[in-house]
């Protein structure tokens, strides 16, 4: 492992870059279905991509146990996240405040992550899924708070049986996980309130 990989590539201007990335995520969370542009502000080591890395830098710190998927666990990205955010690693997905997923297609099912409780539904995991595109996948038709009528995005790759899993996630409301989709140069979000359908449904 190259030591410099782990130390380089953080925000050049931590205060302003974190604010820029957060505002993009906040706008995306408030308006699911919209795609918010995020310039390449962080350069994490592979397989962690720039956008997912930037989102992690802007939201994670020593208060937020982080769960990494198998690909990230064995990479220098783990040390990079440790160095730049100080976030401890979550022992199990149910302990994670954030989950960083480099390969969403192989993700364990959403119900493994913290769902929050009925009294404190905010104590749930926010998943940061690293996707290749927000336009090239199968279209998801979205409805719910933040969307005036309907909207759609087409992220790829997504976890297996995502639409079915997402329906179950919605049925647990107010418990449930939220998803940040980190694509090259852009983010979109799926808060637990949003309802997703594929074309044929």
């Amino acid at each position: 492992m190259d030591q410099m990989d782990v130390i380089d590539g953080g925000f050049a201007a931590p205060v302003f870059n974190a604010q820029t990335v957060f505002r993009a995520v906040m706008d995306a969370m408030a308006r699911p279905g919209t795609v918010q542009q995020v310039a390449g502000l962080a350069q994490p080591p592979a397989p962690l991509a720039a956008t997912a890395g930037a989102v992690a830098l802007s939201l994670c710190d020593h208060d937020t146990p982080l769960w990494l998927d198998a690909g990230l666990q064995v990479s220098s990205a783990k040390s990079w996240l440790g160095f730049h955010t100080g976030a401890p690693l979550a022992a199990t997905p149910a302990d994670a405040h954030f989950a960083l997923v480099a390969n969403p297609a192989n993700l364990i099912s959403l119900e493994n992550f913290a769902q929050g409780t009925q009294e404190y539904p905010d104590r749930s995991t926010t998943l940061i899924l690293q996707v290749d595109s927000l336009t090239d996948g199968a279209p998801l038709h979205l409805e719910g708070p933040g969307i005036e009528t309907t909207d759609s995005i087409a992220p790829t790759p997504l976890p297996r049986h995502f639409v079915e899993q997402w329906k179950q996630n919605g049925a647990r409301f107010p418990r449930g996980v939220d998803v940040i989709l980190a694509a090259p140069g852009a983010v979109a979000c799926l808060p637990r309130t949003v309802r997703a359908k594929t074309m044929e449904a």
Partner: protein
Amino acid sequence: MSDIATYNFAYLDEQTKRMIRRAILKGIAIPGYQVPFASREMPMPYGWGTGGVQVTAAIIGPEDVLKVIDQGADDTTNAVSIRAFFQKVADVAVTTETAKATIIQTRHRIPEYPLTEGQTLVYQVPIPEPLRFLEPRETETRKMHALEEYGLMHVKLYEDIARHGRIATTYAYPVKVEGRYVMDPSPTPKFDNPKMHMSPALQLFGAGREKRIYAVPPFTRVVSLDFEDHPFEIQTFDQPCALCGAAQVYLDEVILDDKGGHMFVCSDTDHCETRQACGHRGHLSPDILEPAQ
């Protein structure tokens, strides 16, 4: 910003901002649910908008244009001091014009001028729990929200009807957000409740002393609680604004003398000034009382 020691941008340290930002994201994801957060001491007393200030400080960036209103007015103490605070610690552009602002921090009003997509309204909230005056124990109110058990609130509204013949709540009128959580819209007059429904703007609520953040995303259903035979109604006024002649706006009563003289003027000062600049006049406007020589 030439001082040797300056505050971090927007006063708060970065760890605090991240903590507040995470709470805001959860609040948006669970509309109307009160997210606990580690509210900090701010350089102003509780009750002066420390919750709203922390939310604004966590979201604001150098590109933002900030407007601060206090009971609809841009020029009252709370609005002036919070605006000056952000000019000092974040060096951001400020405005009094609703349409030009990207972030509007408000104490107890929603501007009359319709908000647009991309704007964020930040409310200063004193008591975030709508059930608090009915049930003082936090453990119990939390359970009531968890079980969606809002019968007590309807009993309270019913008792209003039994006693006064109508629902007497005129401000902090409880709403149900997206069919799930009953929420306190902060002590805005109930006149403003309909503006929260399907608003294109993002609405964030910060309660500093009570350490809660909650949110209503854009285009979210916000329904004021009522009964079929006693539907929700907003305040109406008999006369238009005495300065700009506006009707269908929220008016403040201003006492003019000790002989019972009074006038009603727009609570939203920016709206009133904009209308006067466009030539609208009310019956007590200086131009009408003392025509230009």
